């Protein structure tokens, strides 16, 4: 018998049909799915004894208590009244873009600035000492935490940080744009009481924010908002921007010095490290300790400090938006890898100090920012701080152990509000950030010439808004939000909703922090 080409095709067809009636294709599908779970770069689930560790979260200043479920001494779950970041905090150490390599040389030249993104830690004191050793400046972002309490303390002539909020007994929390149900103060103090109905939230905000949607009452217009709010005593008022005119409403409400209102807070037994004043364009080398980003980086503020040829060195555990702006990135330990401390959460009624224990048994990176800085100080023949970060934390613990604070009762019936602030409080403009989308490279030219392309130097607004601001097309407008300033050229656009400004930003955290934000605008 001669086997022809068609016979071979018939055998192959029979083979294919027969294969479909065997386990081969189905097992291959199943096995390849399981194989994909065990790729070498996927961290294996630890196996071993189950234990628990008690500690504090150091991702933000709230310092929430956590109970870590561990397997074979590795944390696998964090429990507690935690925010979304806190619940997943132990996974930061396994960040896919974790920075591990140290560059061979980091040039240090000119005047040095050290920017601390997690102020009030023991590390902050060491960073300030390192800045002194360099003959440079210890810098911090403007204090946006506790904006209302800071404004009230200024009005009352009290030191900043001497006021707290007795949230545990507050019945109604009136918020002027503050994200009280998102990332405000300590989530563990707000969310559980709000969920059980013990705390009512009245959100006064023109924008449909997450807090506004979830609040018990949402009022979109600030005018006469308090009259429309259903207040159940004791009530307290907070403001995202810390406007004195709004902070002072707490006095009229009788919220000062009473249970569930604003109370006096004892200072901690060590001096707070204050930020130095940096002259414009005076910093030649800026070190940014972003190991714990307790604050947002307000890039317009930072840019003002920098000289034209400044070098930016960022200490970070993994890549982020900030590291993209750095010339050099140096690796540091991730959260929960080393002993850390957190001091007094924002809006806390009492001063507190928490020390966290490491949850990960063996840190991938053992360095901290001060370790890198000390090495640079030694390399340049300067004397680094004599105390290490763990020793500084221990010193603070000893001070706290012997500390017996005395707090005077707070009583205020009236405060003087600067008149200009009362007038300025009325206008509300909002900025919407839009990331530049250049589309496909194949249609770049077409896209850039179309109306869809929004150059970064423009601000779009409805012609009515432009008329209200007294500006025309191509006029220069200075836009200010709580995060910083920007200067843009006006482009009237009827497609934009009146009252809104739309800008294009490469990094939305610069002016808007990723959300629609109240802004002020003037010619400039």
């Amino acid at each position, binding site marked *: 018998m001669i086997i022809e080409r068609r016979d071979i095709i*018939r055998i192959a067809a029979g083979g294919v049909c027969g294969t479909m009636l065997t386990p081969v294709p189905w097992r291959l599908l199943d096995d390849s799915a399981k194989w994909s779970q065990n790729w070498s770069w996927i961290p294996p689930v630890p196996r071993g004894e189950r234990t628990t560790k008690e500690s504090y979260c150091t991702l933000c200043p709230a310092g929430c208590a956590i109970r870590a479920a561990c397997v074979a001494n590795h944390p696998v779950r964090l429990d507690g009244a935690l925010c979304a970041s806190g619940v997943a905090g132990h996974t930061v150490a396994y960040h896919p873009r974790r920075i591990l390599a140290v560059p061979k040389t980091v040039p240090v030249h000119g005047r040095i600035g050290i920017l601390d993104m997690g102020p009030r830690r023991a590390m902050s004191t060491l960073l300030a000492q390192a800045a002194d050793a360099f003959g440079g400046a210890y810098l911090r972002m403007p204090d946006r935490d506790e904006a209302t309490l800071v404004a009230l303390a200024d009005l009352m002539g009290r030191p900043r940080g001497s006021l707290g909020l007795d949230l545990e007994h507050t019945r109604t929390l009136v918020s002027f744009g503050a994200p009280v149900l998102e990332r405000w103060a300590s989530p563990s103090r707000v969310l559980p009481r709000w969920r059980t109905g013990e705390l009512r939230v009245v959100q006064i905000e023109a924008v449909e924010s997450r807090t506004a949607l979830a609040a018990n009452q949402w009022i979109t217009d600030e005018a006469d908002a308090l009259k429309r709010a259903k207040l159940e005593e004791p009530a307290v008022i907070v403001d995202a921007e810390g406007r004195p005119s709004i902070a002072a409403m707490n006095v009229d409400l009788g919220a000062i010095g009473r249970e569930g209102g604003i109370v006096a807070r004892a200072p901690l037994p060590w001096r707070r490290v204050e930020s130095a004043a940096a002259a414009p364009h005076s910093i030649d080398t800026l070190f940014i300790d972003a190991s714990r980003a307790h604050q947002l980086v307000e890039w317009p503020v930072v840019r003002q400090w920098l000289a034209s040829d400044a070098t930016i060195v960022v200490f970070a555990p993994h890549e982020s938006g900030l590291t993209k702006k750095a010339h050099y990135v140096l690796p540091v330990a991730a959260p929960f890898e080393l002993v850390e401390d957190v001091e007094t959460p924002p809006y806390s009624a009492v001063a507190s100090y928490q020390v966290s224990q490491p949850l990960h048994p063996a840190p991938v990176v053992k360095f901290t920012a001060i370790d890198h800085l000390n090495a640079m100080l030694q390399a340049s023949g300067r004397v680094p701080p004599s105390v290490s970060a763990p020793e500084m934390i221990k010193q603070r613990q000893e001070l706290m152990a012997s500390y017996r604070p005395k707090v005077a009762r707070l009583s205020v019936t009236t405060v003087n509000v600067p008149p200009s602030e009362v007038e300025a409080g009325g206008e509300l403009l909002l900025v919407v950030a839009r990331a530049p989308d250049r589309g496909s490279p194949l249609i770049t030219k077409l896209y850039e010439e179309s109306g869809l392309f929004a150059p970064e130097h423009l601000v779009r607004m409805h012609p009515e808004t432009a008329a209200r601001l007294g500006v025309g097309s191509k006029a220069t407008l200075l836009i200010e939000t709580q995060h910083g300033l920007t200067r843009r050229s006006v482009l009237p656009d009827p497609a934009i909703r009146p009252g809104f400004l739309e800008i294009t930003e490469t990094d939305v955290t610069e002016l808007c922090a990723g959300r629609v934000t109240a802004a002020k605008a003037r010619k400039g």
Partner: protein
Amino acid sequence: MFRGALFFAVGMTFALAAGWYGWPRAIYRQTAQPLQFSHQVHAEKAGMKCEDCHTLLADGSFSGIPVVDKCAGCHAAPAGTTADEKLLVEKYVTSGRNVPWGVYSRQPDNAWFPHAVHVNLAKLRCEQCHDQHGKSDKLQQVSLNRITGYSKSTIKMSRCEACHAERGVKAGCLDCHK
């Protein structure tokens, strides 16, 4: 017509034979255990029970295969004359290194099987899942899937489902797949 059907049948028969007979043998690779261990000797001569070595911990988790310290409790020095015991003492007990046993029942990481619930609550005996492994005199070779790396003896979900259905125990996806 007949000729076409014949060649089609030849191809199909060959594929069926390869798929049902050849494939299951080719997909698994046989791996010998690092040393031999007799459950029978330990159970019958030494009078040990399964839970003496494969213990449930206080927190409800299962210790699995015992660590070498457990072996060292009785085998700090060779108690018998076998070559495997000598190897255990010299290579592992003395150095404190755990024996790299091949595991017959290792589950994928996405499946969670609580021994405590099945042993204490459902009162299942070890033999109901692990057959006569506890009475075996010799350790079988471990058949490891060349693609997944899991053992051929790993309990399949169909067996879990059948047992649950038999006992009227309802379980959702997230009860086992965390």
